[in-house]
């Protein structure tokens, strides 16, 4: 049966042993965030996820959301679970204490989010979207708007949405038609239709605050004419109490492959009262503040699902008895050996494991930069961190969700027919994982963002934040015999990445389609090298810990073995990716359109 135990030991490893979480307390505003304070937080989060959210995952999937004349009902148990979640303070865990949040570092938030995604992705989307809305308002809103809305968004008694997509435009938001007309009192009247709005309507919160992209009457054409508006479901009186229902209604919910307990809504805005957030026509900038956060968060969905799928697959592989080991029976007393003895099962399990642990480590590195970016007062450190986060955001989003999807697929394969039927819950993971490759900018768009915007920005300045640490690491360990096993493959893959990067920079300038043709493969190559660096670092830390005889030899030995598996069995993919990138895009682009 499906089960989930939060991987707390590995999370602590990432937080404190791999990435030196203690350094976070040097940042202004995070002085109190010591391990003594953080450990109970993640332990408590694990409890909520394991005991409250995970048990609702499959029932929520079976039941789904129901639309009834504009109202949306979440599956049984969600209201109660959300109340517990909110009362536990989890909605405001990463928010500013000035608005009632707990202000924990992003590094810690990432760990908590991963657990929520493992336990119940659909549920996690409700508070997840609220956090994006919080971020947009917090960064771009006026004091008056912030005062009126932020407290209750942080508290979770209200929730939030991001309304971007319209029936005729998703990726190309420049085509948006939703209109906002200024009123004498400084507010606006907003009309139009938005689709695919997660948490657009539901019964978990008293009010829903929509953040909507729309055009002002004098707006320039295209993406430079989009503004961001706040539209509450219920108008809010000056005393904070709820007033009349605003002109926004849910016309329908989508029937979809996965995340069935998450309400994906069609929202109709009909002369809805709205308030401008940020400057006129600068809506995309404001939206990107939350979109970048959301993209990192979506990456964690891939990670969370890989982890929970791995746990299910391992449990099954230990119990399921089929056939004998190829080298002779391992459990002669039993009618057959458990399938975990078989090489191909091990291949699949270890692949899943490298995804979960590798992505967790990489997420920790990026999250730490987010903390520096948000809290540091040193302009140089801040800019470096911003560069790094900008560079890694599309990689985290696309790599984690692609690998996460592949892992959930392997999870089914390990279990054979029992993975395919609904009873064990394994097939839900792959259905839930599928959307993460699509929303918040498809993974193809992430790849274009990486090669088009991030690669060449400031003559490659963003790249420096990744390439220099890796190059320095390689140089520093050039003569380290014990680490050679990890550093050598890393070096080989890193040189491939350097060459592919140089190639894209060269051809991409004169022939953008060449860069576009290589983008997805380049992102995967980059991602694998980033994981390899994390694995080499994990190996470095583990070797040192074994040296220190901490009494946790099994943990560190397993780490080293997983690292070796990654270097031997996963990283070589960089060779084929490299060959494909260097082959160029002519075969795709010269193919006659009519021949498709």
């Amino acid at each position, binding site marked *: 049966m499906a089960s989930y135990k939060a991987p707390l030991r590995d999370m602590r490893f990432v937080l404190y042993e791999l990435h030196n979480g203690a350094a976070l307390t040097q940042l202004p505003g995070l002085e109190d965030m010591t391990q003594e304070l953080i450990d109970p937080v993640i332990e408590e989060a694990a409890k909520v996820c394991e005991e409250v959210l995970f048990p609702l995952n499959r029932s929520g999937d079976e039941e789904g959301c129901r639309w009834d004349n504009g109202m949306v009902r979440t599956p049984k148990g969600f209201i109660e679970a959300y109340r517990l979640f909110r009362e536990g303070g989890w909605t405001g865990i990463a928010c500013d204490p000035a608005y009632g949040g707990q202000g924990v570092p992003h590094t810690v938030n990432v760990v908590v989010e991963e657990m929520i995604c493992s336990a119940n992705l659909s549920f996690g989307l409700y508070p997840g979207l609220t956090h994006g809305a919080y971020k947009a308002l917090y960064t771009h809103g006026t004091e008056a708007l912030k005062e009126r809305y932020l407290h209750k968004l942080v508290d979770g008694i209200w929730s939030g949405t991001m309304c971007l997509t319209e029936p005729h435009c998703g990726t190309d938001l420049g085509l948006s038609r939703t209109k906002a007309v200024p009123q004498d009192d400084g507010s606006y009247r907003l009309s139009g239709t938005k689709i695919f709005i997660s948490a657009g309507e539901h019964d978990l919160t008293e009010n829903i605050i929509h953040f909507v992209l729309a055009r002002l009457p004098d707006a320039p054409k295209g993406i430079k004419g989009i503004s961001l508006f706040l539209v509450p479901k219920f108008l809010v009186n000056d005393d904070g109490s709820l007033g009349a229902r605003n002109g926004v209604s849910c016309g329908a919910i989508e029937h979809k492959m996965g995340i069935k307990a998450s309400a994906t809504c069609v929202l109709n805005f009909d002369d809805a009262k709205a308030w401008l957030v940020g400057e006129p026509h600068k809506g995309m900038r404001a939206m990107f503040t939350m979109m970048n956060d959301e993209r990192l968060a979506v990456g964690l969905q891939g990670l969370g699902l890989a982890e929970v799928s791995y746990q299910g697959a391992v449990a099954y592989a230990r119990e399921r008895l089929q056939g004998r080991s190829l080298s002779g029976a391992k459990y002669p007393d039993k009618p057959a050996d458990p399938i975990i003895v078989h090489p191909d099962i091990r291949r699949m399990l270890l692949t899943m494991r490298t995804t979960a642990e590798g992505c967790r480590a990489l997420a920790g590195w990026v999250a730490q930069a987010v903390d520096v970016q948000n809290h540091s007062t040193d302009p140089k450190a801040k800019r470096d961190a911003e560069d790094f986060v900008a560079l890694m955001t599309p990689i985290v989003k696309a790599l984690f969700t692609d690998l996460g999807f592949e892992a959930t697929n392997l999870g089914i394969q390990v279990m054979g027919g029992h993975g395919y039927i609904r009873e064990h819950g394994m097939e839900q993971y792959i259905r839930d994982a599928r959307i993460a490759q699509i929303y918040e900018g498809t993974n193809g768009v992430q790849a274009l963002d990486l090669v088009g915007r991030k690669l060449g920005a400031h*003559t*490659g300045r963003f790249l*420096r934040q990744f*390439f*220099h640490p890796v*190059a320095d690491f390689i140089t520093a360990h050039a003569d380290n015999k014990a680490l050679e096993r990890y550093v050598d493959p890393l070096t080989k893959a890193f040189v491939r990445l*350097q060459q592919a990067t140089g190639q894209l*920079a060269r051809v991409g300038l004169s022939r953008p389609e060449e860069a576009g043709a290589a983008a997805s493969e380049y992102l995967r190559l980059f991602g694998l090298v980033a994981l390899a660096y994390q694995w080499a670092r994990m190996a470095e830390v583990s070797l040192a810990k074994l040296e220190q005889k901490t009494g946790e030899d099994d943990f560190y030995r397993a780490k080293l073995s997983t690292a070796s598996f990654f270097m031997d069995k996963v990283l070589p993919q960089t060779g084929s990716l490299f060959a494909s990138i260097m082959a160029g895009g002519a075969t795709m682009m010269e193919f006659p359109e009519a021949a498709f």
Partner: protein
Amino acid sequence: MITKVAVIGAGVMGAGIAAHVANAGVPVLLLDIVPPGAANRNAIAAGAIEKMLKAEPAPFMSKAASRLVTPGNTEDDLEKLVDCDWIIEAVIERLDIKQALYRRIDAVRKPGSVVSSNTSTIPLAALLDGMSDSFARDFCITHFFNPPRYMRLLEVVSGPKTRPEAVASVSHFADYALGKSVVTCKDRPGFIANRLGVYWLQVAVIEAIDAGLTVEEADATLSKPIGVPKTGVFGLLDLVGLDLMPHINASMASALPPADPFHGANRELPLIGRMIAEGYTGRKGKGGFYRLNREGGGKVKEAISLTTGDYRPERKAELELPKKFKDLLSADSKASRYAWKVMARTLSYAAMLVPEVVDDIASVDEAMRLGYAWKFGPFELIDQLGADWFAARLEADGLPVPGLLRTAQGRSFYRVEEGQRQRLGTDGGYHSVVRPEGVLWLEDIKRTRQPLLKNGSAALWDIGDGVACFEFTSKLNTIDQDIMTLLGKTLKVVGKDFKALVIYNEGSNFSAGANLGLALFALNIAAWPILEQTVAGGQATYKAVKYAPFPVVGAPSGMALGGGCEILLHCDAVQAHAESYIGLVECGVGLVPAWGGCKEMLQRWKTLGRLPNGPMPAVIKVFETISTATVAKSAAEAKELLFLRPTDGITMNRYRLLADAKAKALELARDYVPPQEGEWILPGEGAAVGMRMAAESFHRRGLATKHDLVVSSLLAEVLSGGDADVTRPLKEDEVLELERSRFMTLLHNADTIARIEHVLETGKPLRN
């Protein structure tokens, strides 16, 4: 033969012309009136020379040139005109004063000397009215542009009585000695460039006001998108001085016939009147359409509002400007409508000026390119639109279509026929565009043949008589791997099939140096081995240039910086355009020259520097030059700094550079023997300590930054020979190895990276 010149009138133009004659190495007498009650009767001319020595951009190419100008006054020194072959009048634009002066000149000048006026507004016929025939025979107008050293246009107008030899002699001197392009014009108001340019500016100003554009919007539109310098129109007016506008407009208005379109654009503008009255005459005054507001100790760039006349902070124009001229004029936007209105009238006006002002369109284009620094002349711009498209659009807008545009119907103003560029004549036929005698222009050669070698950054051409020409074609002619590769191949081809090689191009700058963008990108992805290979490969290629079995002549014009300077240092000889700005600027971006720049400069100062004995003096000289990233502001100055050898040639006329370089190459090719590899005797570590101490004292005095110390300290290591000792001479490759290792050390330095990044992002150096 013109061997001595006089300029009368030491205002901005007169003094500038005198300075430029001196730049050509010709002695010049500069006269002005005696100021009332002055102790020094030459005070005006002497003061003008004094002022020019401090002016930027510098009117003189060297200190030595300034000593060729002798100041004087028109009362005591007039008889000295007897020695002068050419007397240039550049006094105030008043007919009576000019004529009175001519009579006095005529009384003393030697027979056959030429007298010319630099007038821009008075017709030649008026100037000669009542003057003797003998004077008229030796008289013409020579109209220089400001500043005379830098603007390459000279408009020459001769009268019906002017001796052809008089004009020929002045034109020849202007061409070869002063480096000017001589355009012969008819005696019409404003000649060519100002006639069209003043009209263009006036139309641009009134249309901007009428369409409600800001000055930033107008300048953003009428600059880069149409191939005009970034000053646009309002910025240009600030530069030339707003107070000149009413004068010029008035003189044009009085001289032009009533039917001339100029009158339709000549409207009095109260805003400009007020600005002049309040002293806002442009950069020379309190500011103009733009100003720097220093109130409250700050420095705020401001622009004037054309509607209210108040200053407000400068705002970058937010316009969508298509890249192609035709797209700009076709689009439906505020900027496009404005561009169309201004350029439609301007280009039509240009078409009306042929044959009124000059008989051929090529002269109009040349005048606007060289007199107003337009990238394309008006007829080249019409060709970009298509003459028919332009005529149809004019008709659609109810604007008159000039006759010349009708003549061009169905055709273009220029065409290329069998490699020869031809222009459309007023007779409806095509005529070859002929270069002045002896000019060799690569662009012309390129039309007639295929390159011998070519890649994305360079090409090799056969320029005849056994000489090949290596051309940079990369962006800003920066030097990259492709250039090095092709240069390597070039040496093989030339060694086999040619007598000599010239390195030359027709970009506005010879080379801005190594492609820093590529280097920064490689650095950002930590591609250290590739970077080191780039340095080593460049060193090897430049060294191969130096020891090639045939002569190599470098022929720079404009900037030759960093790697662009280093390639010149490895040539057997250089023939430089006078306006060459050569320097090793690597330290400015936190690096040291590493393509042999340090090595060659050490050797030059050692052998050519006329310094005291011992290895130290040369090392110190080179350290001073390189550590301060000194750039020579002329070819003459480059000789002083030994970026050029005393034997290297200087060509004044940009058009004649390639021919001179080719001649030099052929001269060297006779009995050519490649240089012998030398040795470097360097003083070692002790000397480095000394240089470091000097740098530290600069730092203490605030003249060197923290990172300057780091850079100059590594430079000192290279120049002193690392841990060399005086008794063991270093081989060439050992010095190169020193350059390379220190360069790589600096590439890893965060402060150097910050400098490179800053210069690429802002175009300005970072003083960290």
